[in-house]
């Protein structure tokens, strides 16, 4: 063996070595090419569309400049969608974070049956938004759901018809969305709490801090990275929220629960306003990237060195 390899001329072994050198890149290339085309190429395509006068089909013969964006921001449905996104995301993020943190802190008190409760809090995350939507749509439906139940229990004056009221319908979507995601936020906080260095807490106890003070002054401030992660994940989900709205209200009553994602779909494929649809998608992407890019940058940049 030794004889063989050492006397083999370099020219013979070199081509094999270079093939081995190239192999990793050959393996990676298809995936990377697909991502480049299907993600970044398509983003550019959509960006071009948003400056074109496309209606039913992509049409690059007429250029309208920023006209689609101007029309977009003057369109009442888009304004409704933005308002709804603001209401929805603020409530969704705040309530999920609050419930998630509270449940995590409570569960972290050496609770008997934690192993039983935790999966219950978390299982909605495994469901499709469509399933969640169906469940809550009918449960909140005045005809058969909660209102009907309360009245049949003798509370005749009970009224809960938010899902049918233009002003309030968006809040029912918040309820369903919080139901689906808060358990997951709980899991994130729980992992964070379990990672807190015991000795810090012991030191605080020796310093005479009360349980409440320890949580308020030491543990919750330590959860900063979890708050950040939760915020990013929830904001990302909120901006993309589409399925749940479709399943629960399909944007109704009227256009009361339109979100940007719904707007994009309805204008592009329903109303043949492809240019405006593309513009709305670009705005959505900019919103998400405004949140994600700095986050990824700090997460990855901080790790590297």
């Amino acid at each position, binding site marked *: 063996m030794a004889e063989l390899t050492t006397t083999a001329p370099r020219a013979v072994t070199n081509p094999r070595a270079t093939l081995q050198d190239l192999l990793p890149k050959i393996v990676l290339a298809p995936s990377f090419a697909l991502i480049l085309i299907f993600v970044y190429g398509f983003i550019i395509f959509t960006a071009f569309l948003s400056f074109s006068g496309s209606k039913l089909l992509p049409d690059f013969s007429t250029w309208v400049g920023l006209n689609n964006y101007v029309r977009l921001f003057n369109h009442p449905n888009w304004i409704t969608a933005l308002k709804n996104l603001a209401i929805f995301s603020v409530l969704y993020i705040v309530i999920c974070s609050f419930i998630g943190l509270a449940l995590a802190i409570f569960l972290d008190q050496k609770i008997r049956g934690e192993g039983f409760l935790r999966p219950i809090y978390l299982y909605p995350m495994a469901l499709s938004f469509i399933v969640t939507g169906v469940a809550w749509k009918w449960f909140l439906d005045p005809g058969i759901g909660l209102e009907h139940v309360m009245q049949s229990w003798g509370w005749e004056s009970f009224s809960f018809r938010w899902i049918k009221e233009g002003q309030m319908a968006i809040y029912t979507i918040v309820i369903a969305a919080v139901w689906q995601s808060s358990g997951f936020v709980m899991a994130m906080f729980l992992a964070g709490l379990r990672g807190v260095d015991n000795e810090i807490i012991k030191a605080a106890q020796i310093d005479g801090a009360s349980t409440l003070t320890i949580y308020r002054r030491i543990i919750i401030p330590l959860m900063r990275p979890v708050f950040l992660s939760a915020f990013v994940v929830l904001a990302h989900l909120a901006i993309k929220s589409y399925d749940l709205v479709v399943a629960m209200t399909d944007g109704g009553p009227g256009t009361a629960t339109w979100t940007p994602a719904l707007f994009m779909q309805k204008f592009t*494929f329903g109303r043949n306003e492809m240019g405006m649809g593309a513009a709305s998608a670009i705005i959505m992407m900019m919103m998400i990237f405004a949140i994600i890019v700095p986050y990824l940058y700090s997460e990855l940049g901080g790790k590297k060195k």
Partner: protein
Amino acid sequence: MSAASQDVATRNGIFARALIYAVLILFAVYYLLPLYVMVVNSLKPLDEIRQGNMLALPQQWTIAPWLSAWSTAQIGVQPTGLKPYFLNSVMMVVPAVALSTILGALNGYVLTKWRFKGDNIVFGLMLLACFIPFQIVLIPSARILGMTGLAGTITGLVLIHAIYGLGFTTLFFRNYYEAFPTELVRAAQIDGASFFQIFRRILLPSSGPIIVVTVIWQFTNIWNDFLFGSSFSGFNSIPLTVALNNLVNSSTGVKEYNVHFAGAILAALPTLIVYIVSGRYFVRGLMAGAVKG
């Protein structure tokens, strides 16, 4: 690990602990309520839902809604039930999960063990692709599928799901293999193992947990997808989520709530079973997807 928080807890009074338990149980009820409503009412005749109480147990138990949801309910124009759509989803999910997982594993392997100039940029671009709102690729995707003749086919959906899952699968495997000792790869190189031999013989045997995490993550996401399904499916390739939405939101006929609930549970069942069987891995995937690096 929570010994310290236990110490904290022991100083709480009995009252505080009772309160904590009450809150925890209350929330358990909140999370279980919709599931309970769905199950209970899927086993009732329709009249009992309309006249009775949604929270009450069935007075007259029936599995007719389930049978209807599975095989006879009117979806679109066909009285086929959800069965064909369930099969569509299966045929879409299995290859899409397999494809994206295998590619993700290879990508992660290359990006950690065969580093090259610019590999961080490649990874960064793949990572960022996880987070794009898919609305931005809907129009060009539809066009590509149309041009390649894959519009409205299950193959087209498989392709789309596999591609847009690549970012996450690559992320999962990269982070996992990052912690895998590079010296093992070097030792195998000296032993003369080739690129694929090292992957198959050295890395893969230790990749069990991350494969499970990735497969569960991809399975859940693709099974539960609605956006791509509703945008790209044709008459013969509609996935289950889209069919369920059609069933529930069809404007014609009597609203058969019990059938809707049965259908919703049918649609949720595969992912729920996965969750119950391997919740640990499911949560790990969620975390890995949320907390990067």
